């Protein structure tokens, strides 16, 4: 049968899919190697305790696991990092949580963050009318890195709303003349805060984004008011391509595949990093892929069985299977060629591993989604998804995007 035949090239992957647990040691080795060769971009959230930093992490990643402080109690003692997704991170958030709290000395934390960060998001609560603490740190950072772009989020807009008022829709702050569209208190606070922070040293761009990320039960619609404005600010401030990494195409409305996207990207990047290593165990990449597919199955609550694993791989078809093994093998062969072979092999390996992982992940998402809804799965459709994803996946495998000019060394 088709599936039986197809299993040949997929052998390692098939085994990885069905084993109750992926070879933990090997997987850990792969992820560590990936992390070492390709550090994830770091977003530094600078703001006072309880100014809404965690809400921003939550809104950017779409993860609900980020612990949301309740608006008053400090959550950690010192700066803390939040890797997303936790296993194969594509982005890391750094939080100097204790800023402004009793018994907190920020110097060390700030030095740490400054050394690691690729992108700085400053968070100011709209009702905070004294911004000296944040301003001091911000000025110190900009004096050392005059061209770092700064995104300043003005959070908790609803605290300045008149009684029972809702968010102004559509989001007005990007329009000209927004001043007349928002409640008076909001306008005055937003402008006063901007004026109070004043001119920062250096000439990097400064983007102000008023926003309000609430919990669904707080009763404000939408809960992530201003998220698009924040994304545009981040995208224009940095070349990290964060949005592509964190968010699936806007056309994808299925919440499962939106949640799956960062994981697919994370594992693809890890596979790319592993693939670029000069000497590499051939089984590492399939181990990563197997783990990714299992994770996706977990997200869709549809575990891999002998039957659907065979069906999925069979549907992808022989052509894809052969190309898959060739890609993996070709990289290894190229590396054996002396001289340029190493470099070519590394680039090929990186892009091939990342691309196949990305394509497999996306195809698995499509398969699992249809399967979940009980639709008949067409092989053509699945192959099309795979091919399209392969093209996008190649982009991911390229060497990491340049840092911001004068950016710190990771």
């Amino acid at each position, binding site marked *: 049968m088709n599936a039986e035949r197809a299993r040949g090239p997929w052998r390692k992957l098939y085994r990885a899919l069905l084993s109750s647990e992926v070879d933990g040691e090997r997987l850990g080795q792969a992820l560590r190697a990936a992390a070492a060769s390709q550090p994830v971009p770091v977003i530094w959230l600078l703001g006072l305790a309880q100014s809404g930093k965690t809400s921003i992490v939550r809104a950017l990643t779409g993860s609900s696991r980020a612990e949301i402080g309740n608006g*008053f109690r400090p959550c950690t003692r010192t700066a803390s990092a939040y890797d997303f997704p936790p296993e194969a991170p594509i982005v890391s958030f750094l939080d100097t949580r204790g800023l402004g709290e009793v018994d907190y000395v920020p110097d060390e934390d700030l030095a740490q963050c400054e050394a690691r960060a690729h992108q700085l998001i400053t968070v100011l609560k709209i009702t905070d009318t004294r911004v000296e*603490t944040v301003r001091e740190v911000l000025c110190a950072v900009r004096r050392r890195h005059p061209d770092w772009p700064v995104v300043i989020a003005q959070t908790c807009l609803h605290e*300045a709303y008149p009684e029972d008022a809702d968010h102004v829709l559509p989001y007005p702050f990007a329009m000209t003349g927004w001043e007349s569209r928002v409640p008076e208190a909001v306008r005055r606070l937003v402008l006063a805060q901007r004026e109070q922070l004043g001119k920062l040293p250096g000439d990097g761009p400064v983007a102000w984004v008023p926003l309000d990320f609430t919990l669904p039960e707080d009763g404000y619609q939408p809960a992530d008011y201003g998220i698009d404005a924040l994304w545009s600010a981040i995208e224009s401030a940095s070349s990290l391509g964060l949005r592509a990494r964190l968010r699936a195409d806007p056309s994808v409305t299925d919440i499962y595949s939106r949640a799956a996207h960062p994981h697919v990207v994370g594992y693809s990047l890890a596979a790319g990093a592993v693939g670029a290593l000069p000497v590499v165990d051939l089984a590492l990449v399939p181990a990563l892929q197997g783990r990714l597919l299992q994770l996706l199955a977990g997200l869709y609550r549809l575990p891999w069985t002998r039957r659907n694993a065979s069906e999925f791989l069979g549907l992808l078809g022989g052509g894809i299977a052969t190309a898959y093994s060739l890609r993996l093998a070709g990289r290894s062969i190229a590396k054996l060629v002396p001289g340029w072979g190493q470099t070519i092999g590394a680039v090929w390996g990186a892009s091939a591993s990342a691309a196949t992982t990305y394509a497999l992940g996306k195809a698995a998402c499509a398969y699992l989604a249809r399967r979940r809804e009980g639709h008949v799965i067409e092989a053509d459709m699945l192959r099309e998804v795979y091919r399209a994803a392969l093209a996008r996946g190649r982009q991911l495998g390229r060497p990491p995007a340049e840092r911001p000019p004068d950016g710190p060394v990771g």
Partner: protein
Amino acid sequence: MKDLFAQFGWWRVAAVAIAAVPLVLLPLLGTVWLWQSGQILWWLLAVVLAGGIGLALHRVAVAREQRALPEMTTSPGAHWPAEAERCWAKVERLAETATIEEWPLADGAGLMRLARQVLVMVAQHFHPRARQPLLEMTLPHTLAIIERAARELREEIVYNIPFSHRLSLGAMTRAKDLHDLYKRHEGWFRMGRAILSPQSAVAAELRRAVFEQVSAHGSERLQTWLLREYIKKLGYHAIDLYGGLVRIEDDTPLAAPDSRSLADGEAADGQAAAAAAEPLRIVLLGRANAGKSSLINALFGELKAATDLLPDTTAGITPYRLDRDGALQALVFDTPGFDGAQANRKALERATAGADLVLWVTVANRADRAAERERLDEIRATLAEDPARRAPPLLVVMTHIDLLRPPREWQPPYLLDPPQGIKAEQIVAALGALADALDIDVARVIPVCLAEGRTYNVDDALWAAMLHAQPEADRVRLLRCLRARKRDEDWGLLWQQLGNAGRFLLRRAGRAE
């Protein structure tokens, strides 16, 4: 019988006996008459009844006095700092152990010795290194102590002991002597009476039971109480004077308004109110935009202070006069935020030093309290530096509780113990976090809402807390008044001396001309 003659002499005994004959005969004749008219039984019944009622009333009187006497005792001064209270404990110990056997009240020289002992003890407490502690005190001071103790003791006795204005210590002692004499010879009297008149002997026996108790109570208990009050009064005034807590010629009441408060009061309402007592000075402190001016408006129930959502609305320290149904007379000081552009550190420190009650206003929905804690610790340290001053009580007012989660819900009242609903839980959690961060007892944190149209917990919880803190604040106020007046007195004396010197110089100059 012989010592009776020896004590009074034959003639006097005979005189008394002859003079008493008609009196002795009268009850006999009366008894005979009662017997003959057949009413002796009724009479005996009346005797028993009257005796019984008398005994019962006496019991009631004793019980009342026993309750009243311990209540009437001198207590430490409200304006005393801790040092004086430690000394007071010593005085009380001495008073508790004093007995009238050791210090008979009739012994004037003994009482003077006791007074000296108390004064030395107090003086030693305040001047531990002086070789002659009593010399630390001037003669007018010492006399003033004894005079005051005596005056107050007299007033207390007149108010509390029936017929005391007719009693002198000498009279009490003489009564006691007679009583002792009677005790020694009562056997004779009773036997004689029984022979002469058996009915009246019964009545006398009953009367004796009553009289015994009355006199026994009057002497022992009362005298002990007197002695102890005497020691305490001496101690009280000695502490007042040795501790430098009072002036010699003190005829204005202690709580008379301080000149500064008069000026502030004038600034508050534009008229020099003839305030009888120094008002409580309540100072509102906190960060910019915490809600200090809003709290003023909420406390007064009307728009008094300008408020805005941007900081630095309050330019200077502004007093407002508060008179709440006569229960609380105060000057409430609105201040600019200590981290604001308008903050004048020196002026804020002065206002805090002169405060009797500090209301620390802070926002519920933020966690960056490092600056607040730092400032609060500074204030605590400054106030603790001066042991002669009492630190004003501190209440923390937690504002903006309506902004806690869930932000769109506002349906007071919120029951906090135990918390009911998410909002109440959030308020309780915020209270705990705030108390932790500022290192203050959570019972001293009052959650309020000051938003327009949502004023909550100000008229009840905050007022209750302020009234609860009032006795403590009053002590601070009294001590503050005292210091202010001592300062005025010193200045007054200096001016007088300078004036005298000036006159002297003028005279010298005049003579030289």
